[in-house]
C-alpha cells in the first residue's frame, strides 16, 4: 500500500485501511450462527477463562497486561448503532487501533483525566460464552454477555451488552485480533463513557 512493510503498530497506523475495515466488517457479519457453534466443553472453557481474565485485568486496572492480550495489529470497536454499520462512513461510539488503545491508557495514567478522577471502580461479569468456528482453523469467534457495575465518583451504575471477540489461536492460548463491544444503549446519550469496555 505504498507504506514500508514493517511498521510498529504502537507508533503508526499503516494497517488500518480499506482492506482492514472490509475484513473486519465481514468478520463481524453473520458469524454467531448455530451451524458454526463449537460445542466441545474444553474449548469453550478455555475461552471462557480467557474472557474472565480479560475482565479481571480491566477491573484491576492492569491495562498493560490487558493490552498484552491483543494482537499487535488489532481493532477495538464499539459501534454507535445496533446495526453496527461501516466505521469508514459513520461515527462509532469508539474505534481504536493499537496505538489509540495505548493513547486511552496513557490518558488515564496522566493523572489529569478528570472524567476518571477518582478512577471508577468496576466489577465485570462475563457470561453466556459461546464459541464459533471461522473459515480459518487458527481463528475462532467468541460471543459473551457482559454486565459492568461501575462506581463513578460515588454513583453506582451499570453497563450492559455483549461482546464479540475474534481470537487468534496461539501456541500458549489466544490473542485478540478484534473486539466488538455492543452496548445495548450505544445509540443513546450516555453519561461519562470513559472506562475501557
Amino acid at each position, binding site marked *: 500500500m505504498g507504506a514500508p512493510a514493517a511498521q510498529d503498530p504502537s507508533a503508526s497506523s499503516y494497517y488500518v485501511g480499506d482492506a482492514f475495515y472490509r475484513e473486519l466488517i465481514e468478520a463481524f457479519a453473520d458469524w454467531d450462527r448455530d451451524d458454526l457453534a463449537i460445542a466441545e466443553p474444553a474449548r469453550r472453557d478455555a475461552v471462557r477463562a480467557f474472557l474472565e481474565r480479560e475482565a479481571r485485568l480491566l477491573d484491576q486496572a492492569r491495562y498493560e497486561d490487558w493490552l498484552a492480550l491483543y494482537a499487535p495489529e488489532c481493532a477495538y470497536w464499539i459501534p454507535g448503532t445496533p446495526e453496527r454499520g461501516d466505521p469508514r462512513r459513520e461515527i462509532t461510539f469508539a474505534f481504536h487501533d493499537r*496505538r489509540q488503545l495505548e493513547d486511552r491508557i496513557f490518558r488515564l495514567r496522566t493523572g489529569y483525566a478528570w472524567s476518571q478522577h477518582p478512577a471508577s471502580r468496576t466489577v465485570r461479569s462475563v457470561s453466556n460464552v459461546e464459541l464459533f468456528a471461522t473459515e480459518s482453523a487458527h481463528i475462532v469467534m467468541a460471543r459473551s454477555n457482559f454486565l459492568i457495575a461501575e462506581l463513578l465518583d460515588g454513583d453506582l451504575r451499570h453497563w450492559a451488552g455483549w461482546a464479540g471477540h475474534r481470537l487468534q489461536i496461539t501456541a500458549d492460548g489466544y490473542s485478540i485480533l478484534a473486539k466488538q463491544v455492543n452496548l445495548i444503549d450505544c445509540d443513546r446519550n450516555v453519561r461519562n463513557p470513559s472506562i475501557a469496555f
Partner: protein
Amino acid sequence: MTTQQKPLPLEPILSGRVHDFDALVHEDKVHRSLYTDPAIFDLEMTRIFGAVWVFLAHESQVPRPNDFVRARLGLRPLIVVRDSNGVLRALYNRCTHRGATVCRQDRGSAKAFQCPYHGWTYLNTGKLSGVPWPEGYSCDFSRPEFNLMQVPRVESYRGFVFGTLNADAPALTDYLGPVRRPLDEWLDRHPGGALEVREANRLKFNGNWKLLYDNSCDGYHVVFSHRSLLMMENRFQEGDGKGMSYYKDSPDTGPVKLYSFPNAHHFKDKRDAIPKRPGALWEIEGLHPGMEHYEAALRRDFPDRADALLDLASSEPVNINVFPNLHILGNHIQVSEPLSVAETATTWYGTAVVDPDGEIGEALGPINALRMRTQEQFPTFGEVDDLANFEQIQAGLAAEEDAWIYMHRGLGLPERYSAAGDGTTVGPATDEVFMRDYMRVYRRLMQTEPAIAPTRETA
C-alpha cells in the same frame, strides 16, 4: 483574611414565583439559582426555548419526502418531518386525543403516524386523517384543534433547520446575524458547500444546560480541563505541536480571537493560530486509526492535492455557537438538549464530506474514513473531562450561601477589546466577555413573555 459580605435580599425574591432577573444577573456575576432552581428551568423552557430560533435538525437527516427524525424544542417532543409535499415541518409528537406520543421511532420514513393508544391517525402534514369508530363522536373532526400542533415557523439556513414558536421573532437570517459569516465559511470549506450528518457521539451530564453554553467559547479552560488530552496527543512529539497546543503560550495575546455577536451567539476563531497553507491543519491533527495508511494512499494517488484533501479530514479550528443549543466545532454539529434543571444531553453529530459535484472523486472514501476517526477523538478523550467538570460545578453550586458565579475576566479592561460595526465585540481567547454578553440577552429574554403561537393545519 476574610471579608464580611452583606447578604443580598434574595430570599423573598426566590421564595416567590416571581424571579427578579435584575437581581440574579449582574454585569460581573450571576446567581447560582439560574443553574439550580427548577422553577427558573421551567421558565426557561418558555422564555428562552419558546422565544428564540432553536436548532432542530440538519436537513441531511430528512433528505427525502416522508423522512422524519425526532427532536425536542426545550422539553416539547417534536417530529421534524419533510412532509409528502417536501415541506419541512416540526410537528408536536403529542396525540390530540389524550396526549400520547404518536411517533416512537427516532427516525424513519412515514406518510402517516398512527397513535398506538387508540389508533387516531395523522398525515405527516399533521392533519388528522382518521379516528376509529367515529360514530361514537358527535364532534366535527375536521376542526383544526384535532390536528397535531406544530411549530409555526420552521426554516432552514443552508441545511440547518431551526424552528421558533414566537410569532414576534425576527427572520431567521436576522436572528443569526453576523454568526452567519463563520457558519458560511465553515460550510464553504467543503466541496459544494455540502455535508451530511453520519451518526454521533452521544453524551449527557448531570448539570444545567447553561454550563455547556458558558463553556462553548471559553478559551480559558482548555489547557487545564483538557490537560490529559493535550499530553496524550503530544506523547510522541518533541515539542507540543498537536491538537489545541496553540493555547499554551499566553493565549491572551495569541492569535486566537473571540467574537461576541448580538443575540447571544459567539465564535472562537483559532484559524489564525495555524499557518495558511494546505496541509497545515492535517499536521496538527491528533493521531488516529488509519492516518498513516490513508495519507500514504492519498499522496500516491493525488500527489498535487493530497495536502488540501487531508485538511478536509482534519478538524477545522473554530467554535461557532448559536444560542441556545447549536455548536459547530471542528467538523461536528454539536446539539445540546436540556432534560431537567440538572441534566443535559449533548449530541456530537459527525459530518461527512459528500462532494455533490464530484470535485474530489476517488478521494471521498479515504477522506471520510479519516474524518470519522478524527471526529471521534475529542468527544472520547476531551469532552468527557469537560462534562466531569460541569458535573462538579453543579455539585459545588449546592453551597447555597456562596451564591455567585463570576464571569468577569476582562471586565474593566476595555483595551482588550475592539468592536466590529455590526454589534460584534472582538477580544482575546480567554475572555469571559461572551458570557457577560449572552447573560444580558438571557436576562432580557427571561423578563419578557414571548408571543408563543403554535399552529395546526386548517381544513
